[in-house]
């Protein structure tokens, strides 16, 4: 039970908030007397008592506002002079009176109060906290602030050299408050900052630096304070702020600081990130970053000094409103520079800087759309993982590159965010389970139909023969891909000593015959022996694709897709007009009926659509953009064939890809045609042939093969082991002719254009002259003799078939080919001479063409060029190709 004096009225003790009746006149008179008594004596009271008095006065005056109107008038007389007391407690008590009875004081009085506070802030004899408080009081009241916001009172706020930094900071606040009202704010602020201008040379953590940047920040938020209530005007103010000179001047100050005083760069980054984190001011922060990207980045030089700027680069990378190109290119140059300057004592620096660069790349991966960063970032990462001196950096770069290439954007961002909490210099590689693309949602079949109409995989160079047919000759060359047959592609196993000369079924088991043949081959005339040696050398170079990597043919193709139909089908969340749709993690699988071996599937990490149609018009005008169309909107894909049977064919294409919206695109594209000329390869050169003998070797090889395929020499049963030691082949030649009725210059041009690499010898003085002049065909054997008798003697070729029906002869009877071959050979031998003689006058010369057809076949042309027409004599050890060669030759012109 609390003790209370009995004189206290009961009403004061009751808990209820009773409604008091208005005071009677007697009460009022008493109150006035009490007030008058108190108001008369402020000078006699201690500061503590005055504080109690003033707060009591405020309460009383509030309660009796109407009844005791004279209070405020008395205040002015009795209290004003106390304000200049150097007891801050007293001053503050008096100030609170001013605050409550502002109407009692005119503007002059208020101005005097403001001036008094301004002076107190400069009073070096006063304790620091009271100087700070004086400034707070001054700016805590809008009434007082309005008195000092004019430029005339600003000099009082200029910080002095020996003002404590806290006071300097508060004075700078005052300047920015006043300055933000008018023009020339930044120059005022700069004047104010002179007192700590040496912060530029101090370390970034110095208090002076903090004070300086705080002042800039205060200026910005002074111009545009946060008040959550009015969003509307805030937005417009934002716009006007960004256009204002204050803003431009501040930007210049920042750029200058960043360029001239690199230790301040982290501080600038902190400054900007503080703005970015604020809802109201993040556009300002972004704008600063954009400006820095525009004005600072191009002025930076790669090299070790760039490390100062990493904090800023990180901020720029994090910001989605800044295009990452500039930063990435700078970093690329930086990595090149680091790689170039790497020496024995730079190991640690290379590591640390490389890791920093990668951490920026990581930020890029996380924050930016794949379409924006893919190209520059992949270049940077590719360079790094190939060339950077530090192993760890290389490894990490490779991981990032893989992630960039294989994980679609959204998923990638998620994946990278998982490692967020343990962010180090270079994050540890993520567990495989994270990188694995999770099970795809089932592809949308409806949408996937008809993708062939807008996703295209096209050959870079279309085949000469627009072939729509091809001949799957199952029986002729048994090339069973399942490997069940002992002779694949006409290659026989040596182990069993079985080397069937022909791929015919009948010969496969005829081991005794083969053994006989082998023995028989040992007794031959020296001429044939020489022939065989050349052939053995040659075949010894040809890899046996069954036991070792075979010969591969790479056909460059382009993958691209049209944006418009793509968007129509799949939809696309586009934040702006310029953004193109993209496909991620494209996997292309190939299948074919032809014997091209297993065609490895291709992966394209990322592909942008073709430019939208609306943009095409613009692109057409500006030439500068052509390059970007050329380079950015398709992917180069190589079809890698390992033919087991050199035949044209069709390759079916199946595509599997993700869209940016995580839908799955899958389906067949239009097939790609493989022509016979895709199979044309140069013969493999044995390793021991020196450069100067290359042309000679090819020429000799041509002659040898010509002869072997002509079977004037009996090597039909001879087997030649292939490289790999497990397989051997035999030569089973066929020949044909083709009469081309084209002028010699057209023919020479066509040869030079399409077959130049395969020409091994040109004979005939006039022809040699022409071909040599053209300088397309070089490094071959030039035979300038007029008479080609000798050459023809070695391999006289020709037949009595007209060129037109040559094919018919071959395809007529398969089973008796051997027989016919011999007959034809004999006949041709006899006719050849006469024909050659007849045509001799018309002849300009001969061109010998040696083409290797993988996996192990050959196609030989002997082009007897006359005036107006040319006879092409063909020999091959793979007769089915002749059918296509015929068309090919026609398509040459």
């Amino acid at each position, binding site marked *: 039970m609390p003790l209370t004096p009995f004189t206290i009225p009961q009403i004061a003790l009751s808990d209820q908030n009773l409604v008091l009746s208005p005071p009677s006149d007697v009460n009022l008179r008493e109150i006035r007397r009490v007030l008058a008594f108190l108001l008369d004596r402020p000078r006699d009271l201690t500061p503590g008592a005055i504080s109690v008095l003033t707060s009591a006065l405020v309460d009383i005056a509030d309660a009796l506002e109407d009844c005791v109107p004279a209070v405020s008038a008395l205040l002015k007389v009795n209290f004003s002079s106390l304000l200049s007391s150097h007891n801050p407690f007293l001053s*503050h008590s008096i100030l609170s009176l001013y605050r409550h009875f502002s109407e009692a004081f005119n503007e002059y009085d208020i101005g005097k109060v403001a001036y008094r506070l301004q002076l107190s802030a400069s009073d070096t004899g006063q304790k620091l906290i009271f100087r700070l408080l004086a400034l707070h009081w001054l700016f805590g009241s809008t009434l007082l602030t309005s008195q000092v916001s004019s430029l005339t009172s600003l000099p009082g706020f200029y910080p002095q050299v020996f003002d404590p930094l806290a006071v300097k900071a508060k004075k700078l606040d005052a300047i920015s408050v006043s300055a933000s009202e008018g023009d020339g704010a930044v120059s005022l602020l700069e004047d104010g900052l002179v007192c700590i201008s*040496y912060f530029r040379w101090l370390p970034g953590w110095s208090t002076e630096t903090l004070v300086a940047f705080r002042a800039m920040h205060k200026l910005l938020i002074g111009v545009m304070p946060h008040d959550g209530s009015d969003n509307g005007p805030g937005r417009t103010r934002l716009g006007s702020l960004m256009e204002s000179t204050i803003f431009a001047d501040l930007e210049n100050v920042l750029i200058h600081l960043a360029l001239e005083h690199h230790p301040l760069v982290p501080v600038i980054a902190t400054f900007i990130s503080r703005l970015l984190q604020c809802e109201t001011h993040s556009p300002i922060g972004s704008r600063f970053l954009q400006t820095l990207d525009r004005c600072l980045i191009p002025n930076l030089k790669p090299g070790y000094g760039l490390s100062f700027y990493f904090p800023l680069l990180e901020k720029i990378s994090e910001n989605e409103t800044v295009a990452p190109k500039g930063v990435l290119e700078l970093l690329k140059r930086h990595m090149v520079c680091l790689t170039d300057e790497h020496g024995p004592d730079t190991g640690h620096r290379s590591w640390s800087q490389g890791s920093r660069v990668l951490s920026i790349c990581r930020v890029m991966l996380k924050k930016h759309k794949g379409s924006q960063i893919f190209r520059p970032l992949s270049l940077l990462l590719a360079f790094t993982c190939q060339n950077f001196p530090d192993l760890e950096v290389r490894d990490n770069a490779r991981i990032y590159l893989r992630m960039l290439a294989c994980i679609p954007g959204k998923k990638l961002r998620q994946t990278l965010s998982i490692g967020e909490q343990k962010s180090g210099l270079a994050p540890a590689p993520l567990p495989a389970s994270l990188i694995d693309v999770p099970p795809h949602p089932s592809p949308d079949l409806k949408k996937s139909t008809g993708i062939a109409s807008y996703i295209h995989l096209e050959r870079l160079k279309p085949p000469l023969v627009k072939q729509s047919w091809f001949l799957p000759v199952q029986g002729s060359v048994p090339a069973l891909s399942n490997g069940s047959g002992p002779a694949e592609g006409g290659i026989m196993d040596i182990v069993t000593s079985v080397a069937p000369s022909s791929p015919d079924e009948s010969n496969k088991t005829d081991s005794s015959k083969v053994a006989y043949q082998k023995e028989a081959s040992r007794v031959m005339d020296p001429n044939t022996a020489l022939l065989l040696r050349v052939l053995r050398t040659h075949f010894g170079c040809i890899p046996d694709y069954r036991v070792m990597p075979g010969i591969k043919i790479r056909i460059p193709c382009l993958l691209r897709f049209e944006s418009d139909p793509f968007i129509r089908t799949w939809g696309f969340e586009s934040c702006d007009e310029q953004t193109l749709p993209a496909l991620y993690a494209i996997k292309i699988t190939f299948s074919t009926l032809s014997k091209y071996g297993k065609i490895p599937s291709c992966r394209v990490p990322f592909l942008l659509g073709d430019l939208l149609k609306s943009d095409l018009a613009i692109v057409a005008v500006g030439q500068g953009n052509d390059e970007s169309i050329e380079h950015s909107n398709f992917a180069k894909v190589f079809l890698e064939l390992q033919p087991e049977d050199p035949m044209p064919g069709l390759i079916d294409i199946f595509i599997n890809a993700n869209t940016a919206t995580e839908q799955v695109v899958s389906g067949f594209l239009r097939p790609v045609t493989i022509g016979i000329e895709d199979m044309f390869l140069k013969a493999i050169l044995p390793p021991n042939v020196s450069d100067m003998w290359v042309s000679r070797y090819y020429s000799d090889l041509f002659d040898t093969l010509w002869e072997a395929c002509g079977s004037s020499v009996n090597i039909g049963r001879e087997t030649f082991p292939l490289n790999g030691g497990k397989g051997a082949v035999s030569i089973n030649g066929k020949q044909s002719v083709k009469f081309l009725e084209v002028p010699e210059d057209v023919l020479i041009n066509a040869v030079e254009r399409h077959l130049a690499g395969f020409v091994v010898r040109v004979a005939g003085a006039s022809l040699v002259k022409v071909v040599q002049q053209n300088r397309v065909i070089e490094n071959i054997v030039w035979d300038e003799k007029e008479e080609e008798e000798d050459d023809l003697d070695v391999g006289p070729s020709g037949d009595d078939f007209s060129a037109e029906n040559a094919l018919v002869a071959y395809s007529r009877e398969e089973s008796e080919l051997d027989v016919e071959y011999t007959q034809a050979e004999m006949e041709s031998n006899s006719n050849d001479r006469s024909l050659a003689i007849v045509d001799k006058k018309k002849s300009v010369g001969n061109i010998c063409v040696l083409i290797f057809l993988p996996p192990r076949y050959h196609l030989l042309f002997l082009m007897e060029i006359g005036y107006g027409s040319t006879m092409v004599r063909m020999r091959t050890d793979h007769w089915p190709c002749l059918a296509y060669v015929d068309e090919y030759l026609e398509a040459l012109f």
Partner: protein
Amino acid sequence: MAGCSFRAIWILTPHHSVAFSRTFPVVERRWRSACVRDGEVETQAPLPSDLEVAAAFTDRKQREGSARGFGICVASSTPGSDSWVDDPVTRHIITLHINREEAEGYMLWPVIVHTSGNYYILVLPLVEPKKVREYRKLYQRNNCGGSVKEHDNLSSLLLSLPCITGAFMVAHAIGDLIAGETSDPEVVATSSSSAVGGLLDTLTGSIGIGVAPRPKPTSVPILASASSAATLMGSTLVDSSRTMTKPIDKDLLRGFISGSMPYGTPVDLNQNNIAAIRTTGFGSADPPPADLRQPAWKPYLYRGRQRVLLMTQETINAALYDREDIPDSFSISGQINCRAELEGLPDVQLPLIGVKPAKVKMLSVHQSAQYSDHGEDKQAIVFSPPVGSFVLARYQVSHATNPAPVKGFYQLSLVSEDGGQFLFRLTLMEGYKSPYCMDFCTIIMPFPRRRILSVDGTPSVGTVSMTERSIEWKIVTSGRGISGKTIDATFSGTVRFHPRVVNKSLSVSLSKSVLGCTAAEDSDEERESSNNSVNVEDVLMEKLNRDLEAVDLEEPLCWQAFNYAKVSFKITGGTFSGMTIDPKSVSIYPVVKAPVEYSMQVTSGDYILWNTLARSPHAAVPKDLC
């Protein structure tokens, strides 16, 4: 909420244990009822125990980098910390988080921090719960910082809380008490050279209350600003325990608290008055005067021989550059100290001479005084003096009529990293005639971050001595003061240092906390950063500056970043500003015959000769003052 009351006072040792605490149950009850009224349930928690306060203070120190905190928003600041509020005042008005195991923690605000004699004095004033709520909003704001243009900003909050100011007064009073200082200003009687003691020596001297004269400014450490104790208390004593901590006289403290702030509400903070009342009380010998109102701040009237002692004390802060692009700057702050030993309650009028020519700005006067400014040369202060010494008025001079007492330049050229050549050329007391007398003049070249190996060179006047970190040149030694003549002093020589030892860990940890970044790239930066500088000295300075510590906000600048010489001197016999008092025209009402003794003294504050050859800090002068 009426008046100014305190819920609690804690005094913490340098090691953050509570050395003394006092709570005021009356005030606490008011706080509770205010909470109930405002519906603030969570703030109703009882006051923390001493242990909890100590833990909270330690915790804050860890969170905020130092006992006082950052004061300014730094990279590591987070919402819910004082530095997030981004105002230097948060180094003085702090928040404590009281964490309780059994109950939910809460926030204690505003806690006033003042340091004195290595002790932290914490005062918790009573504020309305809704003010705490307002502060919490600032404290946890989710945007980038406050501007005074917003509603409910920190400034308006502070303006509406006089009790915070009161709490600082109390904290300072307690601080002075435990440090054994008096707040009495120095008044020198010209008749006797010794300083006059404090109030009521006869009354209090016997019981050993430390009423020692204020220490002379010259004894202040060279790096601290000597002009006032305020900057000192803020900075040099923070977080350091190198000086001995004097044990607290708890009886004295308890007596002071119960006398000066009964029930937690301050009445009179003058420790002399409190001590006198406490020891002597009021006897029949001190009847209150019948005809006059005796002010509360003057509980006793003086009896004895009547006299008035006056003294003007001026401090010159100067930055001398000797450069064309930067004008030298002077600022003079002065105060008039008074000790009026007059019987009864008289009024004294003090005419001031030379106020207008010197453009004197009267900053503040004593509570009992009024400054009147009428016409060209009619400035006067009228006051009714309290007992004892007091500061009658403080003023500032922007335009001195006298020339600088020490002029000249100082050049230091760092020839190499470990040595340099220096040259002084000074002129002392040029244009000063008798009775101006320079008592002493010393020049100190501090090299706080280097250890001096040797100094070569002989000055034209005076003697040179050397400590590990500084060189001291005594031009005029006390006892041999100069008067009426000009001295030209030159001193050229070389200084050599011990090789530098870099302490990197500190700068690294600092950069981490302030910038929020790692300094892993330091090695790179060191090699590259020299590109921007042109001359050797700049390179050397930049190199030196790399491991600078950030100074506290209470310091005016990062002294260690510069080479300078600090001049200390004392001049008696006149004022620098030219403003004086004519003792003969001092009038006392009611008229009594009392001699008026007047003395004048000029001392140097931050009187700095900046190295002319290097960068030096300066401030812009507003254009209309040029």
